[in-house]
């Protein structure tokens, strides 16, 4: 049984372990860990919920599959009554007034949140070093970065501190840390899961998604969170991904594409390139039809994404001025108060992105940069539409390079931005993309047309068998 959720469920109903003991074990692991994955451990909150599950089991009541299963929540989601800091000084003492829809659905299914997880502040980063809680350490090599921005979530899953975790992906923030820590991470089609209660970074690409150790757990959590939400008008109703989607074979002759320029680039490391080419050779040997595709230059993808994401985050974070919540510093007048509050309580990288966003939106630049970036985004999206008429799946590395050491990324922002070269394009297109910990050190990225999540699972299971 590869599903940790199903295995734990079985143990709970067979009374091999009590829910309190299960949750306590995870809480203890988090407390004694030095991976910096937790911003807030939800000790009493989780134990109270676990006791209720044990009471139900003792009374002979049926429990749901997710009931009593401990999970982690990236610290950008609201969970009523608990702190939600976005890994910032600004919101370190901010208590969530309500609960995000995706998290509420998991609570309704009986799952137990045990930790608010460390991440790059407001999602601004690709290494989980841009955080006031200390850099998250990689699960496989603590001298390396965890990836980001959902680094704490990926490490918790990889170390089995949580059965699954809920990350957030704007330009690769689930897929890249999943790849860096050898676990599965899914960015669903934009709108498949409600964003209500997720602190907005770039609203037009923000996605909620699961990180888990298996395809089965990824599917269970995805199906639980998906659906249209009154509070997020960009969300939509969708069919659940079936069990058969995982177990059915990928048909021989399936058309699988890859972007030539990603693989032929001088920026890709020899190891990642060799791993990718080896995977393609095996797929050919299995009778799949491999189709090389042309795509946009990686620098163009990164620049388009960052121009738009920065513009959106500058707008979204304008609300943080210390008036209604968060830290408030006082100045000689209101404007200076705002300025001191924001200058002293945002991290350097967050300030860089806010200022960059205002630069994009300011007079003169808005036509030359912002509007042009929107047009480029449309072209990218159109390109995907055409590509997915030719192929069922696109495969790509998650990153061009292996996992970097802690301490290098923040010194060189451009290198950090370019490390997102293979993930941001799919975000701009709103496409569903799954990282599977296969083929390359940082994993393989499997992408399909919008709303075609099912084939991602079929393909990942197939790759797991043949690689």
């Amino acid at each position, binding site marked *: 049984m590869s599903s940790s959720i199903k295995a734990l469920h079985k143990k709970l109903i067979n009374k091999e372990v009590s829910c309190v003991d299960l949750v306590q074990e995870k809480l203890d692991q988090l407390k004694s860990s030095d991976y910096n994955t937790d911003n807030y451990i939800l000790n009493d909150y989780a134990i109270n919920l676990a006791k209720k599950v044990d009471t139900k089991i003792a009374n002979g009541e049926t429990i749901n599959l997710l009931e009593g299963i401990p999970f982690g929540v990236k610290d950008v989601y609201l969970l*009523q009554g608990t702190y939600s800091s976005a890994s910032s000084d600004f919101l370190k003492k*901010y208590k*969530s007034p309500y609960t995000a829809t995706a998290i509420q659905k998991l609570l309704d299914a009986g799952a137990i949140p045990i930790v608010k997880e460390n991440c790059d502040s407001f999602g601004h980063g690709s290494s989980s070093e841009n955080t006031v809680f200390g850099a998250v350490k990689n699960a496989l090599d603590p001298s390396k970065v965890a990836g980001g921005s959902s680094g704490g979530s990926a490490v918790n899953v990889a170390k089995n501190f949580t059965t699954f975790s809920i990350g957030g992906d704007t330009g690769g923030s689930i897929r890249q840390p999943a790849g860096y820590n050898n676990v599965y991470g899914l960015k669903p089609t934009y709108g498949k899961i409600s964003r209500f209660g997720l602190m907005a970074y770039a609203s037009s*690409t923000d996605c909620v998604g699961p990180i888990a150790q298996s395809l089965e757990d990824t599917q269970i959590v995805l199906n639980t969170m998906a659906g249209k939400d009154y509070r997020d008008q960009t969300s939509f109703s969708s069919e659940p991904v079936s069990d058969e989607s995982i177990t059915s074979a990928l048909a021989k002759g399936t058309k699988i594409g890859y972007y030539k320029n990603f693989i032929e680039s001088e920026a890709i490391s020899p190891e990642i390139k060799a791993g990718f080419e080896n995977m393609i050779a095996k797929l050919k040997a299995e009778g799949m039809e491999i189709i090389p595709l042309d795509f946009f230059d990686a620098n163009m993808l990164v620049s388009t994404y960052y121009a738009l994401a920065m513009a959106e985050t500058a707008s979204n974070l304008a609300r943080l001025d210390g008036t209604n919540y968060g830290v408030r510093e006082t100045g000689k*007048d*209101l404007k200076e108060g*705002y300025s001191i509050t924001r200058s002293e309580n945002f991290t350097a990288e967050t300030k860089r992105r806010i200022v960059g966003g205002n630069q994009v939106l300011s*007079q003169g630049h808005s036509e030359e940069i912002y509007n042009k970036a929107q047009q480029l985004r449309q072209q990218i999206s159109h390109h995907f539409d055409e590509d997915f008429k030719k192929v069922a799946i696109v495969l790509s590395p998650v990153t061009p390079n292996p996992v970097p050491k802690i301490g290098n990324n923040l010194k060189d922002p451009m290198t950090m931005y370019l490390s997102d070269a293979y993930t941001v394009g799919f975000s701009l297109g709103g496409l569903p993309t799954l990282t599977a910990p296969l083929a390359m050190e940082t994993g393989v990225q499997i992408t399909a047309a919008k709303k075609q999540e099912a084939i991602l699972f079929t393909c990942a299971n197939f790759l797991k068998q043949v690689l």
Partner: protein
Amino acid sequence: MGKEMTLDVLSSIKGAEASQVIEDLFEVIKKGHLTDGNNNIAHTINAVTIDDLRADEVINSSEIERNLIIENFPNEKNNFLVVPKVIEE
């Protein structure tokens, strides 16, 4: 109107100024070729069309939500939010 606002004012961040790394990103966009004839950005991706927008509705917060909002006030007096000085100019 017409008064130029500097980046530090726009961002409410002291000493904010354009950085080279952001300029480098912008340069790539400036040089980008628009190959598609359809450059209409009104057709925005990942947005709800006006026809699909639901009407605004007022939904009262629960008591626990109201209490948490009050608890989050940076400065509070008798359950009211104390606001900073109003803008005089």
